[in-house]
């Protein structure tokens, strides 16, 4: 017991000596992250994952039917949120702006496009977009254009079928022209009233996160994952001399690991208290606009820090294992960064987990980021499940046990393998 307390006390002292630097880095990181967050929030017209897609339209500006079509489109709420239209006189100017990233894509309407709609000939719209890394804009645009295309085709089908049928029934062309226009208006009216199909009820957040709450959780977990990197200068070990000497004097691997891990956890906890304390103070002046935080009093932020200990436990024990696995600063940093980014992605820190296939969603429940996320969201929504607690604590214990096994392996390993 004396050995344990001796080594533990020294490790606490060591952590305390480096904590100021780590805290300074953490606060810089948090400030940078906050700035990025504000920039992201400010630049997101749709308030979510993609900025509004600007689509260049190349077609006959004077065509009243096209004008009517576009004004109808601009009334569609989903279109309004996702797409903005800009008119171009020709394709070359649109292409120039596309290359300069002034617009995101353009649609080339063929000549006599509106005539072709009336006559029932399907002249295709040529939609040109750049291939870029973020597929999400493209997917949303494709979905919306699919919807628009559906309205156009079905409307045309209705009008053309009626005209063909009326022709078959021997109606005069004058009468058919009148019916054509009248029926087109009936369809336009139907599209404009399409939302009468549904009655929408918003129930708010019972036991799951709001979008803003989700962002907060994802951001917090990724921040904690990256926090491991801040500690690299004192956590990354390049040799195993001290563990070997300690081992020869009866300090077993598990004891060494516990003594080194506890101060690391304590530092993370202290950092969390400082960060949440800051948030509590700021909450007095700024509305975070996160429904889950609406009713929190400043003292609730401190209580939350204690409630979040299992989240810290699973994340920090995972980081600790990574430091144990990698020898030297270059490997330790690379491993921390790779794991933070890839596991953060798979754990739902960047995109909501429900975006992912079922398999990934199930897998995420067992990844450190996913476990921490479930626990964190459980705390925010006050719907913490026993399973979330068990996974967070159990996962942490497993990572510490693995760290001890790795320490043992390093101690017993060949000299030249270190």
């Amino acid at each position, binding site marked *: 017991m004396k050995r344990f307390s*001796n080594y533990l006390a020294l490790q606490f002292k060591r952590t305390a000596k480096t904590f100021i630097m780590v805290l300074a880095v953490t606060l810089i990181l948090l400030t940078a992250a906050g700035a990025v967050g504000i920039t992201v929030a400010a630049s997101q017209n749709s308030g979510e994952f993609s900025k509004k897609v600007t689509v260049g339209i190349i077609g006959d500006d004077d065509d009243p039917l096209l004008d009517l079509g576009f004004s109808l489109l601009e009334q569609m709420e989903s279109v309004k949120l996702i797409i903005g239209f800009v008119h171009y006189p020709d394709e070359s100017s649109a292409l120039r702006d596309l290359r300069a990233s002034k617009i995101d894509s353009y649609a080339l309407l063929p000549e006599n496009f509106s005539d072709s709609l009336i006559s029932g000939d399907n002249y295709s719209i040529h939609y040109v977009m750049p291939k870029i890394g973020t597929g999400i804009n493209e997917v949303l645009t494709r979905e919306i254009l699919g919807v628009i295309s559906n309205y156009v085709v079905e409307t045309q089908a209705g009008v053309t079928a009626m005209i063909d049928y009326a022709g078959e029934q021997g109606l005069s062309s004058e009468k058919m022209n009148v019916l054509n226009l009248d029926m087109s208006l009936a369809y336009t009216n139907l599209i404009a009233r399409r939302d009468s199909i549904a009655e929408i009820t918003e129930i708010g957040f019972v036991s799951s996160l709001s979008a803003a709450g989700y962002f907060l959780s994802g951001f917090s977990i990724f921040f904690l994952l990256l926090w491991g990197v801040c500690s690299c200068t004192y956590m990354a070990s390049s040799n195993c*001399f001290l563990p070997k000497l300690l081992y020869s004097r009866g300090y077993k691997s598990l004891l060494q690991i516990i003594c080194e891990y506890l101060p690391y956890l304590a530092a993370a906890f202290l950092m969390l208290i400082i960060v949440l304390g800051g948030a509590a103070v700021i909450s007095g002046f700024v509305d975070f606009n996160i429904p889950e935080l609406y009713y929190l009093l400043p003292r609730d932020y401190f209580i939350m820090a204690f409630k979040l200990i299992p989240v810290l436990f699973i994340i920090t024990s995972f980081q600790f294992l990574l430091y144990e696995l990698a020898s030297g600063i270059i490997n330790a940093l690379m491993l921390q960064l790779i794991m933070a980014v890839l596991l953060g992605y798979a754990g739902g820190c960047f995109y909501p987990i429900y975006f992912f296939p079922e398999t990934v969603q199930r897998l995420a429940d067992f990844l450190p980021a996913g476990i921490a996320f479930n626990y964190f969201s459980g705390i925010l929504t006050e719907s913490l499940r026993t399973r979330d607690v068990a996974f967070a604590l159990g996962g942490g214990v497993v990572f510490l046990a693995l760290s001890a096994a790795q320490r043992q392996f390093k101690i*017993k390993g060949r000299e030249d393998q270190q």
Partner: protein
Amino acid sequence: MSENDMDIRIVNIQKSFGRKTVLKDVSFDMDLGSCAAIVGANGSGKSTLLSILAGVQRGNGSFFYAGEDLMKNPKKRSSLVGYIPQGAPLIQELSARDNLLLWFSPDRLKYESEHGVIKQFGVDEFLKVPVRKMSGGMKKRLSIVCAVANDPKIILMDEAAAALDLVCKQVIRDYIRSCKSQNKAIILSTHDERELALCDKVYLLKGGELSQFGYDGNIDKLVEHIK
């Protein structure tokens, strides 16, 4: 039976890494108050042998002290054996004093700083200096003091004087002499001619096998055998 009659016997130490056998039935014995040197080429298994004796690595064989196999009694081994590894087993962010507190109680630290091993190695002169600001020699001296804090009967030194300045080397040699005079046994691996001169027995480790070498101060002859 008096302490002087007791033997230290190392019997059939074996160690393999995969298919490669590093130590083949290594056996030797020595008395307390004596010093034995293990010499051999780099990678011949000297460090492995010492770390097995220290209990850091697992290996087959026996390590008898006073008739008791220390390999089977790790607790006793940790109280009897002091192991000085090649590198510096120190916490970089802390001062020399903090590092010593891991191994010495505050009272003993004070006593040793004034009269004992801490003063002997000159560590008392830089107790407040953080390890990362120390020179190689300071780190080595501090490492040795940490390793022998339990006042061991048997000291295992793995190239303790490598890459040190002349003053430091002299301090280590003085320490070896004092250990011998205090009836302690020292097993060291070394490439240093003057350290060899202090040893009562010199063993040559080659191809995993240990054999006694009649070292007479002729280093050229020793080098020929090591090759």
